[in-house]
C-alpha cells in the first residue's frame, strides 16, 4: 500500500499539444480517488503518467517515498485495468489469472497462492476451473480484475473499466469495485467521464478540464459547493440550471433579474457578497439545481413562470423541461405533479442552495 504525490506534473506531446498542465495532487494511502472530466481533459494521460506509460514532461511523480519519474512501468508496483478487457478464451479462470504471473516466471507455488487469495477476495473460488464462455458478464469482469489483483500492487489504476458494459452490469460492477476497495485496502485511482460513477465510488474527486484541475473535493462538497461554472454544470444529473441575469439592488434587497424581466430576490448574506464584489448593475450567472425547484401557486413572488415543453416520468420522480430566456431549464418534482407539456407552471427556488458565477472568470461567487 502506498500514497501518491504529483508535483507540478505537465505533459506536452511532441506535436506541442499540452495535455496536462501543472497538476498538483496528494493522494493518501488507501484512498479511492476519481479523475473525472469530459473527453480530452487529460485524465487518462495523467493516469498513464502515473503508470509510466507516458513520459512526464515536467514535474515529479512519487509513489510512497519513491520518485518514479524514471522508473520503468513494470517496476512501479502498480496494476492497471483498462476499458477493453478480454479473457483468454481457451484458458480456465485459474489460468487466466495465473497467465501474467507465468509470463513473469513467478514460481508455481507462489502463483497458486496468489490466484487463490485473489479468487477468495473476488468470491470466484468456485469458478476457477471454468472457461470464460461459461461465465456471466459480471463474473468475467471480476476475473479481469483478478488478473491485476494477483500482482499484489501498491496502487491500482483503472481507466474507465466499466465504460464498455451495459447499464445494468455497470451498476452491479460499481458496487463490486466499491466492495473490492474495502476488502483490498489499496489506493485506487479511477478515471471516468461518468459523473455518477465518480460520485458513487470516490472518497475524493478530481474534476479536470483542458488538462487543468478545476476542483478536488469530496462528492458532497463538489455537489454543494462547486468552485466554478464548469464543475457546477458537470457534477449532477440532470445538471445544474445556469441562467445569465442582471444583479439589481432596490432598497435593502438585492435581486437577480432574469432576461424575461422576472425578479428573484436573494437572501441578504448572498446579496452582501454581490454588493461587496461590485456586481450590482452587472451580469452574473445564476445557478440552481433541478431538485431545488418546487411548484408554487400562481402569483407567488420570487417564482419562475414556465410553459412545460417535455414531461419525463422516471418512476420515483418527474423531470419537467422548459425554456427560460433561451436557456433550457430542468425541474425535478414529485410524480404526483399535474404538470404536462404545454401547461403553465410557477416554480419557486430554494434560495439557500442557489449559486452565482462571474460571467467572465466563471468562478463561483457563492
Amino acid at each position, binding site marked *: 500500500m502506498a500514497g501518491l504525490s504529483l508535483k507540478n506534473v505537465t505533459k506536452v*506531446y*511532441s*506535436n*506541442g*499539444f*499540452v*495535455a496536462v498542465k501543472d497538476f498538483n495532487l496528494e493522494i493518501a494511502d488507501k484512498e479511492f480517488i476519481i479523475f473525472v472530466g469530459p473527453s480530452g481533459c487529460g485524465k487518462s*494521460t495523467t493516469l*498513464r503518467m502515473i*503508470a*509510466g*506509460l*507516458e513520459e512526464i514532461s515536467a514535474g515529479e511523480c512519487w509513489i510512497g517515498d519513491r520518485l518514479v519519474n524514471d522508473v520503468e*512501468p*513494470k517496476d*512501479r508496483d*502498480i*496494476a*492497471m*485495468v*483498462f*476499458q*477493453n*478487457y*478480454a479473457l*483468454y*478464451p*481457451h*484458458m480456465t479462470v485459474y489460468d487466466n489469472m495465473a*497467465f*501474467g504471473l507465468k*509470463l513473469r516466471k513467478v514460481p508455481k507455488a507462489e502463483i497458486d497462492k496468489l490466484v487463490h487469495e485473489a479468487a477468495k477476495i473476488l468470491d470466484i473460488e468456485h469458478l476457477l476451473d471454468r472457461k470464460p464462455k461459461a461465465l456471466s458478464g459480471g463474473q468475467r469482469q471480476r476475473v479481469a480484475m483478478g*488478473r*491485476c489483483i494477483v500482482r499484489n500492487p501498491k496502487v491500482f489504476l483503472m481507466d474507465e473499466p466499466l465504460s464498455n458494459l451495459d447499464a445494468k452490469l455497470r451498476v452491479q460492477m460499481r458496487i463490486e469495485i466499491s466492495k473490492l476497495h474495502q476488502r483490498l485496502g489499496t489506493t485506487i485511482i479511477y478515471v471516468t467521464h461518468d459523473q455518477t460513477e465518480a460520485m458513487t465510488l470516490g472518497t475524493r474527486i478530481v474534476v479536470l478540464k*483542458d488538462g487543468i484541475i478545476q476542483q478536488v473535493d469530496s462528492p458532497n462538497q463538489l455537489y454543494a459547493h462547486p468552485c466554478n461554472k464548469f464543475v457546477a454544470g458537470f457534477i449532477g444529473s440532470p445538471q445544474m440550471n445556469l441562467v445569465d441575469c442582471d444583479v439589481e439592488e432596490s432598497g435593502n434587497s438585492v435581486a437577480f433579474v432574469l432576461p424575461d424581466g422576472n425578479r428573484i430576490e436573494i437572501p441578504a448574506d448572498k446579496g452582501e457578497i454581490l454588493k461587496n464584489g461590485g456586481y450590482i448593475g452587472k451580469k452574473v450567472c445564476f445557478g440552481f439545481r433541478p431538485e431545488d425547484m418546487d411548484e408554487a401557486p400562481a402569483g407567488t413572488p420570487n417564482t419562475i413562470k414556465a410553459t412545460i415543453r417535455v414531461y419525463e416520468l422516471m418512476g420515483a420522480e418527474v423531470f419537467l423541461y422548459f425554456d427560460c430566456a433561451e436557456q433550457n431549464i430542468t425541474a425535478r418534482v414529485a410524480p404526483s405533479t399535474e404538470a404536462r407539456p404545454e401547461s403553465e407552471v410557477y416554480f419557486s427556488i430554494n434560495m439557500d442552495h442557489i449559486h452565482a458565477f462571474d460571467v467572465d472568470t466563471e468562478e463561483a461567487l457563492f
Partner: protein
Amino acid sequence: MLSNQSIMNCLMKVKEAIGEEVGVYTSAEVFVTSTSTRHASEMKTLIRKLDVNDETALDGKVYYRVEELGRLQYLVTVDDTPAGRTVGKMTVLQLETMLNLDQDRYDKDNFFKNLLLDNLLLVDIYSRANKLKIDIHAPRVAFLAELTARDNGAALEIVRSLFADDENCYVTAVNEYDIVLIRQVKADEEEKKLLKTAELIADTLQTELMENVRVSYGKIAEEIRKVANSYKEAKLAINVGKIFNPEANVISYDSLGIGRLIYQLPLPMCKLFISEVFRDQSPDKFDEETLTTINEYFANSLNVSETSRKLYIHRNTLVYRLDKIQKMTGLDIRNFDDAITFKIALMVVKYMRYMEDQNI
C-alpha cells in the same frame, strides 16, 4: 520443438486414462518429463541400440521412437507390461500428432511472415496458401502492435492467447518489436469493430506487460495477396501517428488526415518549403511561449477571446504576441491563408525532425 509443458500435459492425460507411468527423453538422451520421478535417473545410452527398431525392450522397460520426417525426436519409456505397452503406443501417437500440428503452425508462421515481408512470388502465394488450407479469397486486416521494449516472447504469447479461439486469426512476430495479427473479417466490416480489436490488443498488452504499446491497422485486404498491403498501411499508420498524433496509442490507416500527405514528401522538398515559409526563422528557434501561443490559437480555431482565456492572458497580450509572430515570420495567423500555411509548415517541421531522429 514441443514445449516440456505441453508434453507433460499430454503425459498426465494418458496417465489419467490408463493409470500407468510414462516418461519422455529427447533424441539427445536428455530427460524431458515424466509422470514418475524415477524416469529421470533411468536413462542409459540407448540411442544407437534403438536406431532401427520402433520399439525396444530393455531391462524391464520398453522404449518407443517418436520421429518427425524420419528423424528421431523423442524416446518414450514405459514399464514392460501389457498396460505399459498400450500407454507407450498411445503416447507415441499423441506426440506425433502434436509434432504435426507444431509443424503446421511453423509452416503457416513462415508463410505469413514471408507474405507480409513481400518475400513470396505471386504464384507461390496461391500454391502455398492452398497447401496450408488458407482461404485465399477471405478478406483480412493486418493489425500491428509495436512494443517499446524488445519482446521476449511474452507479447506474442499474449496476442496468440487472446485470439486462440478464432481459427481464422493468425499471429506472428515480424521482428523483436512488432507483432502482427492477421484477422479474417467481413468484406464490409464496420470500422468500429476494427477499432475495437485494435484497442483490445493495446489494452491487453499494456495490462499484462505494463509497457506502452501502439497498435495500428490497415485497410481490409480483399484476398490473401493484398494482406501485405494492409500490413504496410498499418506500419505507415504507426509512423505517421507517432509524428502527428503522439497522444493516441491506437491509430487507423483511414484516419491519418493531412499527416499521410506530409509523410510522403521528400526531405529536400520539405527543406525548400520551410525556408520559403520561415526564411531564416525556423520554428525550432521559437521560444516556448511563442509555440504555446501558436498551438493554443490553432487549438481554439483562431478565436482570440477563447485563446486568451485558455492561456490566462489578456486579449491585448495575445494580440501583441500574434503581431510579434507576424514580424518574425511575415505570416499573420489571424488571416486564414497564412494560418493554413503556418499550420502545414509546423507539421512539415515535425516530420523533418522525426526523420532526422530516425537518421533517415
